[in-house]
């Protein structure tokens, strides 16, 4: 098994943390090999940012994705810029409120991550909602492992909020799966 995942959004949305959580879940809380890399513009806030993870049951040589198996998009600009190497069977998950122009002539998964985060009282956890959705849609990793990784990676005082965000995202992902079927 080898999966290449890209999470993209704008700087400040926490796409790097999201990638970090997934990579850690795979390699620390499960026993896969994982690498996570990132690229971003010079801006600390704004601008397109992406975080990429490779999960494999074998040692990982080349550390960047060669063709993306799963794409999670959290902003229009990043969805537009970081889509050139996707395949017909690439799993695409977008937040339709953040990526309004997402019609690319084929079905994709829609998860209203920002809306859910706002319902939880803090849009800062939009990325964690996406991590939850990724977990149920991809089925790659055990939900407990990803949840552990979330808890391990966020500040203690926000643990509860992030667990909720993860769980709501996980449910939303399940619903998105149903919707597409």
């Amino acid at each position, binding site marked *: 098994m080898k999966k290449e995942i890209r999470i993209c959004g704008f700087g400040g949305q926490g796409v790097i943390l999201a990638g*970090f959580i997934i990579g850690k879940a795979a390699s620390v809380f499960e026993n896969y090999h994982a690498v996570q*890399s990132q690229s971003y513009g010079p801006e600390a806030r704004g601008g397109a940012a992406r975080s990429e993870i490779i999960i494999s049951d074998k040692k990982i040589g*080349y550390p960047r994705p060669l063709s993306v198996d799963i794409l999670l998009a959290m902003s229009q600009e990043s969805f537009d810029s970081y889509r050139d190497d996707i395949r017909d069977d690439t799993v695409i998950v977008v937040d339709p409120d953040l990526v309004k122009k997402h019609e690319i002539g084929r079905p994709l998964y829609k998860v209203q991550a920002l809306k859910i985060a706002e319902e939880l009282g803090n849009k800062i956890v939009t990325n964690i909602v996406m991590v939850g959705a990724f977990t149920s849609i991809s089925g790659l990793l055990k939900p407990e492992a990803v949840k552990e990784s979330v808890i391990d990676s966020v500040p203690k005082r926000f643990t509860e909020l992030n667990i909720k965000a993860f769980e709501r995202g996980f449910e939303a992902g399940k619903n998105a799966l149903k919707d597409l079927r």
Partner: protein
Amino acid sequence: MKYKRDPKRIRQVLGKKVQFILGDMACVYGGLLAGCSFFGGYPITPASEVAEGMARRLPRVGGTYIQMEDEIGSIAAVIGAAWGGAKSMTATSGPGFSLMMENYGFAAMTETPCVIVNVQRTGPSTGQPTLGAQGDMMQARWGTHGDFEAIAFAPSTVQECMDFTIEAFNLSEKYRNPALVMTDGEVGHLRERIIIPEEKDLKLIDRVEATIDKKKFIPFTNSQTRKNCKVPDFPTFGTGYRTYVTGLTHNEKGFPATDKQPDHERLVKRITEKIIDDADKLVSVEKFNLDDAEIAFVTYGASARPTESAMEMGRKNGIKVGMLRLKIVWPVPEKEVHKLAKQVDKIIVPEMNLGQMVHPIREAANGNCEVICAPKIGGEIHYPDEVYKYLEAK
């Protein structure tokens, strides 16, 4: 008060045994595990995470972090701290490494143990600050003026960033020479799993401190307590040896001997031979599919990753290709490369520059096979395809 390494405390500060961290951070962990108690640094992308990691952790283990005014000051403070008895390190990238060159030579000349992590980025000049390269490999070897020997590691993984930083400390302490961790922006900014070694599995080397009668002690000569050892015992400042340490050519007592040819030759031969004599012991390579190989990649650091993928593609397609990965790049494992050159028809050297390590490798091959460079520049590591195509090229 002087720092005393407290393994329990270090482990408390480092946290869990298995972690998913940045290559840069792994250098921090390696340093702390090795007993580093002083870090002098200056922020520079993509090495700043090393300084940040140290700033957060050193005061919690009882060590000292100082953000110096520039990289010249950083390496200077690191050398000063070493003479004060600390294990010390700094981290930088190309532009900072260039600034450090004069004092890098000072460390070699004065036989000062210290570690420099270079998270290489593209150059020349400011280049591409956030992106990786391997453009300082020759600078590591020849960047300072005069004759000296370099000791340099090249990690390919985050785990190796930690392991090699520990090893760099060990060799710098053993040989009393600066040791380099020549990583790059690609590995430095990669996150991977690391496993922190148990204390009992950790092999640490400390410099041999001077212990003999102060009147009989000679600071810059073969060890007076170990047989056939060209590394002198270390008279830590403050222990009463009252040593004069100078970057000028000096005699065995440490006194300037700037106009004396024999003194210079004796000194510089000893400080280089202490490493050259042990070159065979300093070989650290990883071999892949070399037994029946007709073509071999010789590579290091981040470049080894796509090269390994390319080698696997080659094997799948029936090409007898193997790979020699250098973990220690300086000194170059000349005998290993020479032996390999006699076996294979071609050696290909993928590296993230227009050809640096290919030169000593070609020298070691000594005409026994063709040695070609597989360069990649511009801040990206090679795609496996790009490396693979060298296997099919005639």
